[in-house]
């Protein structure tokens, strides 16, 4: 039983197999995890950099910005400014985890436990991922996207494709549906439909129709504002979707490119909402698995110490006045919260019984955690489960910075009886993507009039858009829309704070 998985730091593929089997046993039997089939791939540092620059995906369409990111990462890696992640894991089925060949045997065990079981379980069970991503279809879809972009480049030229993709990328963070729609995303079906659409367009194309004389245009009664907005599905916060469906002069392939970028943005949307939970889950799982392996005597004390070293680095939380501080470390916060839930479930204090009557003393740690992992995202997770004990442990405090306030930045709440709920609410809010991203919507367009597209940015707490960037993004937007675009910043009382108007750049004749 107590046969060691490996000795020292070296590993080979048999070792990896043994490690994976051992981890799997703990993960499935002890922790009761439910995972996609695993696929583990060993890669080099350079390949890891490659994967970095294409948002961690093994295949992606070609675009200069990935080259930029590669150069950027590579330069900082070479200068030692940045270590490489130990692993990258992909939300797909089978769930693909990349391990770096440089890792020691202990690190490989850690990474397998972390990625192949922790993240994997989270991807498969969290409601956001279930709702918004299609693990079976993603790799095929990316393959389709890659080929489609390539074909477009052959047909319409690299520059044209690049222009469309640049514009789509600029709007990517506003190409997301935030609320679940009618049906779940099925990327395979999406890919097939894209093919059928193209085929249909080609089949029904008949140049003769262009020459058919048009009848006298129907007298258009001015439709009411309400009706017009309803017809266009306004207001619409998914700018990419709106353009794809309603931009008057886009070529079909351009719409398809927008759709691709939109689907990819949507695919990553759950990840941005669950950083703390996702990393917390994976870290908690690797910690449990490593501890179990150590207790079983399958890894040595030395290896376990090595593991503890890396683990401690990962969950280190610098304090606000520390040079290394750059916000809350999702690993630290997530892991601490998972452990804290374990404590509350198994060994609660009076305070915990008061704050968490549902779970305190319930004793079924994994049952509670699996339920939490399945049904929350960062914002609701923190809002629900951050305990006073943890707030005291991190010595959290809430600052309110009002530029108008002369005296400085006010300490609004600290980790005391009066402050717990406020600190917790505020921290939860900071993890709400709906709150982090600017609230921008298409509110109106007059398709029979001047076709100007009107967007609103609802300004919250006086935080307006960065001017340079906004002009550039709007330029991209106007180029796709091909008519003027206006962005109006309004505050909560509908008072106009600022207005941008951008006209499209002339398009080369070839595209139109």
């Amino acid at each position, binding site marked *: 039983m107590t046969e060691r998985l490996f000795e020292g730091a070296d590993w080979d593929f048999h070792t990896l197999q043994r490690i994976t089997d051992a981890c799997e046993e703990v993960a499935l039997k002890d922790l009761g995890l439910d995972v996609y089939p695993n696929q583990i791939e060993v890669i080099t540092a350079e390949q890891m950099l490659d994967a970095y620059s294409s948002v961690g995906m093994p295949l992606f369409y070609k675009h200069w910005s990935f*080259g930029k990111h590669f150069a950027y990462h590579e330069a900082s890696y070479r200068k030692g400014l940045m270590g490489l992640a130990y692993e990258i894991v992909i939300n797909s089925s089978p769930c693909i985890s990349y391990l770096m060949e440089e890792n020691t045997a202990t690190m490989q065990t850690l990474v397998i436990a972390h990625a192949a079981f922790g993240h994997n379980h989270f991807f498969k069970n969290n409601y956001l991922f279930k709702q918004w991503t299609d693990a079976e279809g993603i790799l095929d879809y990316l393959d389709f996207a890659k080929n489609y972009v390539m074909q477009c480049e052959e047909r319409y030229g690299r520059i044209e494709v690049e222009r469309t993709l640049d514009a789509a990328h600029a709007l990517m963070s506003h190409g997301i549906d935030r609320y679940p729609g009618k049906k779940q995303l099925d990327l395979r079906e999406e890919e097939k439909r894209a093919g059928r659409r193209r085929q249909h367009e080609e089949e029904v194309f008949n140049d003769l129709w262009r020459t058919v004389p048009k009848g006298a245009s129907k007298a258009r009664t001015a439709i009411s504002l309400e009706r017009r907005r309803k017809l266009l599905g306004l207001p619409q916060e998914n700018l990419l979707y709106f353009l794809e469906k309603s931009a008057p002069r886009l070529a079909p392939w351009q719409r398809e490119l927008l759709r691709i970028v939109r689907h990819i943005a949507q695919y990553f949307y759950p990840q941005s909402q669950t950083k703390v939970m996702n990393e917390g889950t994976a870290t908690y799982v690797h910690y449990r698995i490593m501890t179990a392996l150590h207790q079983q005597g399958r890894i040595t004390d030395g290896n376990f110490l090595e593991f503890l070293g890396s683990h401690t680095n990962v969950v280190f939380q610098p*304090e606000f006045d520390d040079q290394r501080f750059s916000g*809350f470390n999702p690993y630290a916060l997530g892991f601490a919260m998972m452990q804290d839930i374990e404590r509350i479930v198994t060994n609660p204090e009076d305070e915990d019984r008061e704050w968490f009557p549902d779970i305190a003393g319930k004793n079924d740690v994994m049952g509670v955690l699996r339920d939490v992992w399945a049904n929350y995202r960062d914002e609701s997770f923190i809002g629900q489960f951050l305990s006073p004990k943890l707030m005291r442990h991190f010595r959290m405090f809430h600052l309110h910075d009002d530029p*108008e306030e002369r*005296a400085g930045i006010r300490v609004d709440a600290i980790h005391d009886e009066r402050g717990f709920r406020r600190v917790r609410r505020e921290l939860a809010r900071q993890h709400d993507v709906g709150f982090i991203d600017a609230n921008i919507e298409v509110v109106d367009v007059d398709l029979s009039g001047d076709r100007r597209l009107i967007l609103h940015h609802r300004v*919250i707490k006086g935080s307006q858009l960065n001017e340079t960037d906004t002009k550039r993004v709007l330029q991209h937007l106007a180029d796709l829309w091909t008519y003027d675009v206006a962005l109006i910043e309004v505050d909560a009382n509908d008072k106009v704070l600022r207005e941008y108007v951008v006209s499209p750049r002339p398009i080369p004749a070839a595209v139109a």
Partner: protein
Amino acid sequence: MAIHIIDRRLNPGGKSLENRQRFLRRAKSLVQGAVKKTSQERDIKDVLEGGEVTIPLDGMHEPRFRREGGTRDMVLPGNKKFIEGDYLQRQGQGSAKDSGPGEGDSEDAFRFVLSRDEFVDLFLDDLELPDLAKRRIAQTESEGIQRAGYTTSGSPANISVSRTVKLALARRIALKRPSKDEVEELEAAIAASTDEDERAELLARLERLKAKTKRIPFIDPLDIRYRRYEKVPRPVAQAVMFCLMDVSGSMSEHMKDLAKRFYMLLYVFLKRRYKHVEIVFIRHTDRAEEVDEQTFFYGPASGGTLVSSALQAMHEIVRERFNPSDWNIYAAQASDGDNSYSDGELTGLLLTDKILPVCQFFAYLEVGESGGSAFDLSDSSLWTLYERLRNSGAPLSMRKVSERSEIFPVFHDLFQRRETAQEKAAP
């Protein structure tokens, strides 16, 4: 549940090469600017190693809707002494700047490592050789043919007999094919045999041997090897660069250094354009000699100055080794401009009659001391002479240089694209 463990390390790397090239294409002007700036600060030798450049990312910025300003709320860890209602000083944003990680300021500029080729390409991208007449030849290459081992298929004319026989022999030994001697021996034994039984046995053995011999042929199609030929590109035209340097006592180390930098640039530049570039180093005082690079730049020499000696030497070398119809000939002469008075006429004659007619380009670089105050006073004797020649239409380019940082601009000036170069060459 079966878990797949896959080794991807052998997969072709450089997946992002294509993306990198796209990025470079897009950032070309930015990178080019950075490359030029970098190359002025560095030794040319280092320039050729490629390396780091810093480019502003702003030009490559990918815009997003970003919010800024307004009132901000943040929850931070590590409270030590504050209580509710305290105020923190806002000075320098020191304590609270990190509320929004990823605000993008870190990407203002970044260092970017270019490979040697990328670097030199960008470095020389907008330069062109002055005389294009022969360059066109240089771009078309003829294909030569080269032996490249053996192959198992080919035309009968290419059968390699020795290799085939060797392989056949190896096969026969390996499969124990009976040798001729063995058979003859056995036949002799049969002839000599008197005993019927023994004879029958021997005959049977002979039969087996013969059968085996048939099964294992002397030459099998498997043994046959053909000579393989490969096409290799052979450049039709080549380039030779003559470095003529005055090493008389008046040339200081600084001046030699300037000259060396210029030659290096020229060398790299030619190397880009031609498969084969040769360099001939000629140094001269009052007499000239062909030397190696080390001696050229660092060997001590001293004496009077006779420029014509170098030109004469160059002329002889061209006549012996570099037929002008096959070679693109370039010359760069560096000097502080002093020449003995009596030598002027000979120098002029050599240039107009012998040197300039065979040269694509002749660059004269007058080097001066750092600071170069005496430089502006009056033109040197050589400068005056060359200027006269140039005014009468000789394809000569001349520049004065006194600082390291001027080398590249001067070089750039001399070799920049044709249209503008012509304007400058004929002031």
